[in-house]
């Protein structure tokens, strides 16, 4: 048996110590998890989605637990890009983990302006890459619309690509009829990597009041309940594109992460599980290493997309 293995992967030109990243919206701005996690050990940190101006978010109730999952309708509440730069990013300077900023907007111009602004400060503030959210189901205006149409996906990613040289990860929605065409459009428009899946749109009803349980009526479903859907879509996209795929969806233990990697994900993002077990990222990193050693795999890249059919 080997006694050492290599966990390093490269995503969109970003070198990661290991394939474990934090999913946007589930890890705050990083600092919140410092009591539980040595941030230096993470593959990368993706912070809470940011918009040009601060966003208030949706009224409560914003979250409801569902069988093996949860629905959320936070509505992208965030401090806005300027406060992110001023108050959140400086703290992360002392860690050597790549910081990736998840960006959202209502118009192409807003995405472009955000990418420009973050590009300006990228060296000084340690912004390593951007994850473009074209798939948020919980905001009124465009939100998910970009990510459900191949032409719109191409248009927006192409515009951002022309603006910035920062590595671009495009986060895809599962709420589409054919994810392959969207994935291809993003790749053709210049995406360096794809991350999937964002949440599935869902709803719950209170039978006593006959009102929806979420104030926003609908929300995004996440957690173990969505994992099989996510795995299937990751596998589909992995076969379709030539850029790296990042798997997201219901990963709560090491076996889940390994499933995604075998199905084609070069890295994974951990989301909802952070709420249940704040140390889950570290436990999964350790678990992946143990699996590789036990299975005589010298380099994690050998495992990526190794599913036998």
């Amino acid at each position, binding site marked *: 048996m080997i006694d050492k293995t290599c966990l390093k992967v490269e995503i969109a030109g970003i070198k990661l110590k290991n394939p474990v990243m934090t999913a946007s919206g589930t890890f*705050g701005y990083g600092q919140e998890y410092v*009591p539980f996690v040595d941030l230096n050990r993470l593959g990368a940190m993706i912070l809470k989605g940011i918009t040009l101006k601060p966003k208030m978010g949706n009224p*409560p109730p*914003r*979250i409801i637990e569902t069988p093996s999952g949860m629905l959320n309708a*936070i509505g992208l*509440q965030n401090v806005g890009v300027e406060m992110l730069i001023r108050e959140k990013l400086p703290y992360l300077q002392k860690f050597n983990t790549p910081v990736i900023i998840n960006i959202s907007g209502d118009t192409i111009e807003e995405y472009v302006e955000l990418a420009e602004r973050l590009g300006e400060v990228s060296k000084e503030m340690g912004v390593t890459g951007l994850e473009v959210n074209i798939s948020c189901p919980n905001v009124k205006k465009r939100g998910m619309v970009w990510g459900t149409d191949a032409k719109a996906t191409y248009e927006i990613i192409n515009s951002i690509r022309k603006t910035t040289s920062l590595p671009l990860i495009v986060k895809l929605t599962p709420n589409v009829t054919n994810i392959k065409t969207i994935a291809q459009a993003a790749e053709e428009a210049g995406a360096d990597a794809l991350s999937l899946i964002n949440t599935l749109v869902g709803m719950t009803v209170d039978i006593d009041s006959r009102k929806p349980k979420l104030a926003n009526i609908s929300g995004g479903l996440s957690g173990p309940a969505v994992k099989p859907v996510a795995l299937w879509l990751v596998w589909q996209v992995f076969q379709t594109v030539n850029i790296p795929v990042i798997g997201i969806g219901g990963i*709560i233990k090491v076996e889940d992460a390994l499933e995604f990697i075998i199905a084609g994900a070069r890295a994974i993002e951990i989301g909802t599980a952070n*709420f*249940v077990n704040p140390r889950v990222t570290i436990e999964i990193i350790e678990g992946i290493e143990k699996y590789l050693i036990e299975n005589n795999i010298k380099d994690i890249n050998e495992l990526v997309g190794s599913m036998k059919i």
Partner: protein
Amino acid sequence: MSAILNIKVKILSGKEVVPNIYLMRLKAPEITQDALSGQFIHIKCSKDNYPLLRRPFSIHRIDKEKGEIFILFQVVGEGTKLLAQRVVGDDLDIMGPIGNGFNIYPESRKIMIVGGGIGVAPLLALCEESIRQGKEVRVLISALKKELVIGEESFRNLGAKVDVATDDGSYQHKGLVTDLLEGSIREGWLANQIFACGPKSMLKKIVEISLDAHIDCQVSLEERMACGIGACLGCVCKIKTKDKKEDKVKYEFKKVCEDGPIFGGSEVVWDD
């Protein structure tokens, strides 16, 4: 504020104190050291991942000497049902202490504590701390009926004067706990601070009464919660913003877990 810990603690005892309401005692010296009344702990009720999310519980009592904390909870869903079934000696995965805690002003001499139903949960620790600081404390509690009155003896044993309101009149005052509060003010017992926890309709009324009587009021709020550490932004409530340039009430969303769970009563925007 002290750091939030994620630790495993032993269940020392658990019993159903009134129908469907449980008192659980936990060995948690790491938590009692810094815990404040009004703070809560975030408990993983299940041993596996179903139900998935943790559940927040107010700290009912803090015994610093023995290193023990108590929680008092009502079984309302799958999480609390599983928690009630956990047995003595079990390890419980908890995060805490979380939140800001009640703010008892040094200059306050008289304290009024009002709890509705399971809302008494965070108030016993508050009562104990107030009395430890030498305050005169009165407690008003409400329940649907006599069998569901919680904590009356515990508050009295600490040295507080306790009055009870029941919806059906099966014990003491028939009616609302807010009737008792108005009555005490009419009789001239004016507290320097009112602390309250319970249903939103009750809290709203208490805040109105406190504003009329010019008494400072703090309320403990709850909301559906996921992470408990300020990351997910799930547990927000509407809090008035300081800027009062316009006539319209302006508000922002504050996190119950990190900015609360205790808020100034006059800051809260109560939705109808």
